[in-house]
């Protein structure tokens, strides 16, 4: 009986000592949302459609990403580039490029499939919304910013 009590007290003391020790360890939690969270380099977030050095869109509307996508969430409409309306470096460009984030599972297949490295994963992740309609992202929302000093079109 007495040894039982002593054992219990000993076990509690040992547990408490562990807790006390941890009290003096450095903090490891992040202060999100007051501070931006830390992401590792390969983090797969909301996609970014890249531009090349001249500010032209890299996407040539080849539909490979849409074909690779397991959840069929990429919708593309292709149009020919013309002399006075040159949007991409190739023959065609994506007039409409939608990604439906209701369905996207961030698997990365589209990024792997793209022959021109046009579509990449960014680090944005705050896309929660009360309205599913706003989760269909258009090309304008996905495109990277035009580089500074790009030649005027």
């Amino acid at each position, binding site marked *: 009986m007495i040894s039982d009590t002593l*054992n219990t007290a000993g076990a*509690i003391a040992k*547990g408490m000592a562990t807790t006390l020790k941890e009290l003096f360890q450095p903090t490891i939690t992040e202060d999100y949302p007051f501070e931006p969270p830390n992401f*590792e380099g*390969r983090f797969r977030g909301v996609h970014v459609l890249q531009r090349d050095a001249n500010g032209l869109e890299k996407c040539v509307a080849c539909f490979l990403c849409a074909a690779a996508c*397991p959840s069929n969430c990429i919708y593309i409409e292709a149009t020919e580039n013309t002399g006075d309306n040159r949007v991409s470096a190739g023959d065609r460009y994506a007039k409409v490029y939608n990604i439906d984030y209701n369905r996207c*599972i*961030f*698997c990365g*297949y589209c990024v792997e499939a793209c022959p021109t490295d046009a579509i990449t994963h960014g680090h944005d992740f705050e896309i929660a919304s009360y309205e599913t309609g706003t989760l269909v992202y258009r090309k304008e929302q996905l495109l990277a910013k035009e580089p500074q000093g790009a030649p005027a079109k």
Partner: protein
Amino acid sequence: MTEAETVYRPHPEDHTFLDSNEIVINMGPQHPSTHGVLRVVLRLDGEKIIGSECVIGYLHRGVEKIAENRTYVQFNPYVDRMDYAAAVSNSLGYCEAIEKIMSVVAPPRAQYVRVILTELNRIASHLLWLGTHALDIGALTPLFYCFREREEILKIFENYCGARLTTHSFRIGGLQYETYDGFEKQVNVFCDDFLHKVDEYETLLTGNRIWLQRTKGIGVISAEDCIQYGVTGPVLRGSGVKWDIRKAMPYCCYPDFEFDIPTGQNGDTFDRYIVRMEEMRQAVRIIKQAVAKIPDGPIMAKIPKVIKPPVGEIYHSIEAPKGELGYLVVSDNSTQPYRVRVRPPSFVNLSALDIMIRGHLVADVVAVIGTIDIVLGEVDR
């Protein structure tokens, strides 16, 4: 039979005193300690359980049916969503099954990286189990410590493949991503640190009187019952059966490593706890060996661009953190599987819940659900 009859089917051998005060209560599907959307219909005599029935399907997404409408490659990310606490294991099982049916072998480097990540995932899954299981029983502290170490593992995953939970880290034929700079170092640092951390969890729990009283002799299942019900994983080993697919039917490059299979004797909640704690230590042992001799070379085998396995069917199983995870794949030589059937460990282990909780109190149901370590995403699929 109507649904009500199936659920409240009386068990002829159980009678309450004068059949007067039998109560039927619902535990779940919205209950914090059923670890998801599991509904357990309990038949009680006072607080004593005289029968139970699990009602599942609240998380059913038809994963197996989805497989029939996707190509082999496209289905790969979906398997991560079954046991989301151990996505890497799911992926390993699926990729190896398809490789087996195509008669392809992943290159050695890919296999080593696979083992490292899978074992890390085993630790992560056990940590999640330990934290929540202890929390259910009333020990709040281990949760924070477990999640702290789990975070380290998830950082390695994020660094390696860009996602923390539904990692989608393996591809049919090998790996998509080469390891990043400092991968070996980060894994080694984690392993060295982690062994002390396991001791720390044990300090908090193993000798604790409340922990012992809540776990010793609770949810006892005999080895024969385990085998009859097809229970695998730590639950089976807790009952004293030395069965681990990594040793019994080796896959990947597990024969290259030395490790022990911990077993218990009594088949109670406490023994299963000890088995899982020891499994984490053994996982560290495997990881350290793998990191030490990780070979150079390609990470992807030569596989055709369009995967069309020959006609046939194959069953491949691996030792997931929760037990035997098997895939039966039937191919009709098209780009999409004819049928994919998953043998999920959680689902099979859950079938033994009834015999484990009979005669115990309501509070013990929580302990037993925790100790079986189910993930409802895998039970319902």
